[in-house]
């Protein structure tokens, strides 16, 4: 495993199916908790790469080991874009969770899933996955609705005068194996569209928290805690452009710190349903 100073970039998974991963060892007395960061999908993954790195660094500074990874066919992982579908992503989450547990020996494992990453995570939890805690960061809960949104956004990009100033509005030919600029599998859209994220479908009942905007309610999720995002928090999904990288703002730092404190608190012995508490970040 290479050493980049604060974290360790390496490969996980088998030959021909290697996933790029980065392990952030706990840099404070470890409370025995580890977090797997599940990235957002497509253009949102690259846009948010720096933000996820900064979040992992901050959690590791608080004593929580973190593992980031790229899905097969995305980021720096093996495979072309057409390798990635719902089944492969579920498999990747399983591989990454096993790698986190094996490399850190943590007693408690949590998953922090961003935006569209909630879709394969929910599918994994509905089939084979088991973790102690789940944190959903502005999750996409309606896979079909999101696929429609992306199809519209993609069509707009292909005839955007800002992107193609010399085409005079003549759209670039659409391609079914293309979405938001990325090569995709024909199985990706129907797979993601089939997912409605709901805690009721999960085989086990991990403690589930949300990191949400103040005005957002997600009735399909039984969230035990909600951390409210401040106004200066980057909106991962608000642009289709990849050249706008997202950063951890001062307000967002406070949310991540609050999340770190909460994650280091002991897990309840049982997993009862509890009323939701919303926690706003202090100004």
């Amino acid at each position, binding site marked *: 495993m290479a*050493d980049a100073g*604060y974290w360790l970039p390496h490969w996980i998974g088998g030959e021909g199916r290697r996933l790029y991963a980065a392990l952030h060892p706990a840099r404070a007395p470890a409370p025995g908790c580890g977090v797997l960061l599940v990235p957002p999908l497509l253009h949102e993954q*690259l846009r948010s790469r720096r933000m996820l790195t900064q979040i992992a660094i901050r959690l590791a500074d608080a004593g929580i080991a973190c593992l980031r990874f790229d899905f097969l066919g995305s980021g720096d992982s093996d495979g072309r874009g057409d390798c990635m579908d719902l089944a492969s992503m579920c498999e990747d989450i399983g591989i990454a969770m096993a790698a986190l547990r094996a490399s850190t020996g943590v007693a408690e494992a949590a998953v922090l899933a961003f935006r569209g990453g909630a879709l394969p995570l929910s599918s994994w939890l509905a089939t084979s996955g088991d973790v102690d805690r789940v944190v959903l960061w502005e999750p996409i809960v309606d896979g079909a609705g999101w696929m429609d949104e992306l199809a519209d956004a993609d069509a707009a990009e292909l005839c955007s005068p800002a992107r*193609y100033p*010399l085409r005079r509005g003549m759209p*670039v030919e659409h391609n079914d194996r293309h979405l938001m*600029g990325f090569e995709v599998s024909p199985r990706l859209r129907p797979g993601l569209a089939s997912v409605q994220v709901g805690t009721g479908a999960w085989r086990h009942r991990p403690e589930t928290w949300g990191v949400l905007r103040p005005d957002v309610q997600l009735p399909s999720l039984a969230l035990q805690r909600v951390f409210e995002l401040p106004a200066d928090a980057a909106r991962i999904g608000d642009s289709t452009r990849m050249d706008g*990288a997202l950063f951890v703002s001062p307000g967002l730092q406070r949310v991540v710190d609050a999340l770190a404190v909460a994650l280091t608190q002991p897990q309840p012995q049982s997993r009862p349903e509890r009323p939701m508490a919303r926690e706003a970040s202090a100004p």
Partner: protein
Amino acid sequence: MNQVVTFGPGQHLVGILSGDSASTAPVLVLPNAGLIPRAGPFRLHVELAERLAAHGIRTFRFDTPGVGEAPRLPGCNTQEATLAALDHLATHHGVGRFVVGGVCSAADLGWATATRDRRVVGMLMLDGISFIGFWFHFARILGALQRGPRAWFGIARRLLGRTAASTAGSGSGAGRKPFVAGERGWPARIEARRQFAALAQRGTRSLWIYTGGYADLFLHPRQFAAAFGRAARDPQVTLHYWPDCDHTFYARQHRERLVGTIEDWMVAQDRAGWAAP
């Protein structure tokens, strides 16, 4: 085979070295483009790595300080990080020659590194350094005329609005930030000509592609020779102008054209023989 490589001050920078370690061909070094992480716009660099690896050509993609996973490193800017990458590959992987570049800021790094380091035997210049002049203005006026009288009113209004905004000294909230060559570290035109002539003289090969997404800076293929002089016509220089493409090659078919063009160019240079460092 892909290999994770750490390098630079404190080994804090990370790159992916792809391809056959026994290869003696120059390594294509791909710094991140703008703020887009090292996988490249829509994974362009990953696709390139896979295609070139089939020809035994290695690639190395990495994040410069402050982009993607890379921390900001005091005393190590993007140019120094690129030179650190070259030094590391030379010391630890036996690489003696490099082709450096990519899209936009990565092309700028290709130019800057080539002018500083003789180990750079090729440059990949995708929407890189450019100077407007007669042919740019000619193409802009021609384009406006071709759009017909209905478009002229809007063009005149935009031009007048831009002039009024610049006179008032205020940037338009809805407008685009005016381009400033110095912000990209470009030399003045006369210095760029001198540098390009020197690069051509030492045998540096270069592939230049300008896209329609660069319409604020490049609008006509003859603009290239007008900007760079005699060196632009050197047989070691390859130029394409693709007005139908955007700056980051969003559409799959455009990216496929780009990857194929770079692949063909790299293989052809390899067959012809690169210059010695």
